[in-house]
């Protein structure tokens, strides 16, 4: 029998219960607050990465884990300045068709082997061959010629102004290691849960969907000065739990504290709320080729229904601004397009004119993100006012990418951010609106405009900056006049960190990630 009720005497049992509970309470007091070792940072994020393969670093959750593990040739800093990393120096040819790169010497991968041109060549060729994820940023890549271990030349199929910027998302792989584990899919399966990098941290462990643990790589070429020995990224889906873990000391930095809770952290001197300007824009992309949204009046009506001001005021609590057109407002070459404004009367008229007074549509969105969750509900309610029945469908980013692969599976509306990988209009206007990126890249609405295609492609190869700007401005006007998307907001990046965390931890070019190497801890 489970319970010792055989004997008459319950006293020893009762006594042991008392002792055990006393011990529990006492040990509870002892383990209050955070862990023992002071040089561990715990970061709370709400979505685990789909893979650790850097080829998917266009997805911010993957980028977040790849940043500590790998290096790039060139990278952006917190002020959007492009600077050298693995590439010590580089020279773009006059015709823009090739780039000579000199690598820094003495860089080691985590397994001890030296990083050489062969690794760069392997990485670039692999990206081109598999043609997913970051490949859409470097379509101009043709081949790499190796001169010696530290010198190489990248050849492009056409001049590409944004190419150098795009290199900030090409993380260099340890070619020997990946080749040994290539399998049948060029190492995608192996790299899903393994790393082959040279970055400041190595991957200690990854518990699926729960925790990724990193430890300092002693031989990192840039050296260390105040960084934590261990970094843990913990996946906590609920913002309430993230908030409570911050308060409790279990977590040091949290990405997803609800905006309603920010004021209490602002006034708490044990914490600091870090707000930074971003390159980000929140969109809703219409399905431009199928369904009721193919009618421009329907699109215009839906755009006019949304309460943009309330979005910034209530949902963002002022941390951001209403978007102005398809290009994020802070970028260069911004056209003169006004911010969106709600006009329910006109919206109803447009729908009536289109003969669609009772419309039924659905929207994919990442409801795990607070801004999207609340925007979705706000849009749903607003559309009800004009007679449109909106069904909200929660998806994950990989799922959404899957849905936009074919026009038939693309939703009527898709709410998604643009996280531009570099502060150049190409990263938005081409990547999201050029028809060559339909069905495999980031053209989420299957938007096909020959005019826009020619404009952005010309701008990509143009060498005169002002001419480029003219082309981009015109492209924006065309996209806008087609009512291609609902341009909602340019939100700020907000994280809550415990006091004592400092450094340039956010870089707009790598949105929704922290520059782990630059997180400095002071207790």
């Amino acid at each position: 029998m489970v319970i010792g009720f055989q004997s008459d005497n319950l006293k020893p049992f009762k006594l042991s219960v008392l002792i055990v509970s006393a011990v529990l309470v006492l040990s509870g007091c002892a383990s209050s607050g955070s862990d023992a070792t002071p040089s561990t940072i715990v970061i709370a994020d709400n979505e685990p990465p789909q893979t650790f393969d850097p080829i998917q670093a266009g997805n911010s959750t993957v980028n977040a884990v790849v940043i500590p593990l790998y290096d790039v040739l060139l990278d952006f800093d917190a002020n959007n300045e492009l600077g050298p990393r693995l590439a010590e120096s580089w020279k773009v040819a006059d015709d823009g068709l090739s780039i000579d790169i000199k690598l820094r010497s003495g860089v080691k991968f985590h397994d001890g082997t030296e990083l050489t041109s062969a690794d760069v060549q392997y990485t670039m060729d692999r990206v081109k061959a598999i043609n997913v994820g970051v490949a859409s940023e470097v379509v101009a890549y043709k081949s790499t010629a190796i001169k010696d271990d530290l010198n190489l030349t990248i050849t492009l199929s056409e001049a590409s102004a944004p190419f150098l910027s795009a290199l900030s998302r090409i993380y260099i792989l340890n070619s020997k290691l990946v080749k040994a584990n290539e399998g049948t899919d060029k190492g995608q399966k192996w790299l899903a849960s393994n790393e082959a990098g040279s970055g400041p941290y190595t991957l200690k462990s990854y518990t699926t969907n729960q925790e990724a643990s990193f430890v300092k790589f002693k031989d990192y070429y840039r050296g260390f000065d105040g960084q934590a020995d261990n970094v843990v990224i913990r996946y906590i889906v609920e913002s309430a739990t993230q908030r409570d873990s911050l308060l409790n000391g279990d977590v040091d930095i949290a990405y997803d504290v609800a905006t309603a809770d920010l004021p209490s952290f602002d006034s708490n001197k044990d914490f600091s709320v870090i707000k930074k300007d971003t390159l980000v824009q929140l969109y809703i992309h219409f399905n431009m080729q199928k369904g009721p949204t193919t009618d421009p009046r329907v699109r215009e009506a839906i755009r006019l229904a949304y309460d943009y001001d309330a979005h910034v005021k209530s949902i963002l609590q002022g941390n951001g601004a209403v978007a102005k057109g398809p290009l994020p407002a802070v970028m260069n070459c911004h056209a003169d397009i006004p911010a969106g404004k709600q006009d329910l009367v006109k919206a109803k008229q447009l729908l009536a004119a289109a003969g669609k007074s009772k419309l039924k549509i659905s929207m994919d969105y990442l409801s795990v993100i607070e801004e999207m969750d609340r925007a979705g509900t706000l849009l749903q309610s607003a559309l009800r006012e004009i007679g449109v029945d909106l069904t909200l469908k929660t998806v994950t980013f990989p799922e959404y990418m899957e849905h936009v692969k074919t026009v038939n599976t693309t939703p009527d509306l898709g709410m998604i951010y643009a996280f531009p990988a570099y502060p150049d209009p190409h990263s938005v206007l081409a990547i999201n609106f050029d028809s060559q990126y339909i069905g495999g890249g980031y053209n989420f609405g299957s938007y096909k405009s020959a005019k826009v295609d020619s404009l952005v492609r010309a701008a990509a190869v143009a060498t005169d900056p002002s001419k480029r700007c003219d082309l981009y401005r015109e492209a924006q006007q065309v996209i806008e006049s087609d009512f291609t998307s609902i341009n909602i907001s340019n939100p700020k990046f907000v994280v809550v960190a415990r006091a004592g965390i400092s450094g340039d931890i956010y870089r707009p070019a790598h949105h929704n990630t922290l520059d782990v190497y630059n997180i400095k801890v002071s207790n």
Partner: protein
Amino acid sequence: MAKFVLRRLAMVPVVLWLVATLVFFMIQLIPGDPARVAAGRNATLEQVQAMQQKLGLNKPLVEQYVSFLNQTIHGDLGTSIFTFRPVLTDLGQVLPSSFELVFAAMLINIAVAIPLGVITAIFRGTRTDFALRIITLLGATVPVFWLGLVLQYLLGAQMRIFPISGQKPSGAQIERITGMTTIDALASGNLPLFFMTLHYIALPAFVLSTSFIAVSARTLRSGMINILDSDFITLARAKGISNFRLILRHALRNAILPTFTILGMQVGWMLGSTVLVESIFGRQGIGSYATTAVLQKDIFAVIAVVLVMGVVVTLVNLLVDIGQKLIDPRLRISDA
């Protein structure tokens, strides 16, 4: 007795087959192209076609069914489209944690329900009985997820008596032996760490147990009342046996059978309820794994959870049945 065990064991594969059939039926319900879904996010056309071959979707339904059963028996439950690992491996990682939680919750359940059942039976009709039964009623009808949230907030975030989420303090290293954090911590010899893991499991286990305590206590109470009214108790009292001994030795022992049965069923139901508790407290068990899998549309993972749950429940049922026979010899005679 042996005959009985063998007969019951023979039923196990039948039951598992039923569960597998139900699961196969569920897979057929999935809209869209299962091969596409199974091949994963970034599958190339060749990979999707390969998956179609593997799933045998071109073959007639009966053939698919047979190969499905075949694969399942061999433990091939498919590959998770998110972790890229066999689902069985993933499940192996997370199951021990749920077992640990259910075990802890069961301990609390038994430790609270048995005294509660006995006391309310003895003192039936009095104020104490009434008060205790109100409390247990509340325990049974309060929504588990709500209780978890509220207690987590009050006791965790506000009063800081318990940790918010997780199974161990972050940064703590526990070598994985069984997969159960408490056991592994104990096995590593690090006593303070062991107590800390107990601290982490305390609140989730308590929350999980509340709805079950009421039923167990009530079952025991009914059983005890029936027994206490019966003749042999009167006889025992006439013989002069002390009250205390009477209750424990005679009444409880005889009343325990239906309670034991209920407790056995509750193991399965508790495992199901981990779905609610684990995601609130950030514990990595089969419950949170299944929830994440559903929300990520990781079909194979969910199917595997249903299958494994079927296996576990059947085995527990079997053990309960055998245990019943062991406890009460009378049942051995009236064997169906």
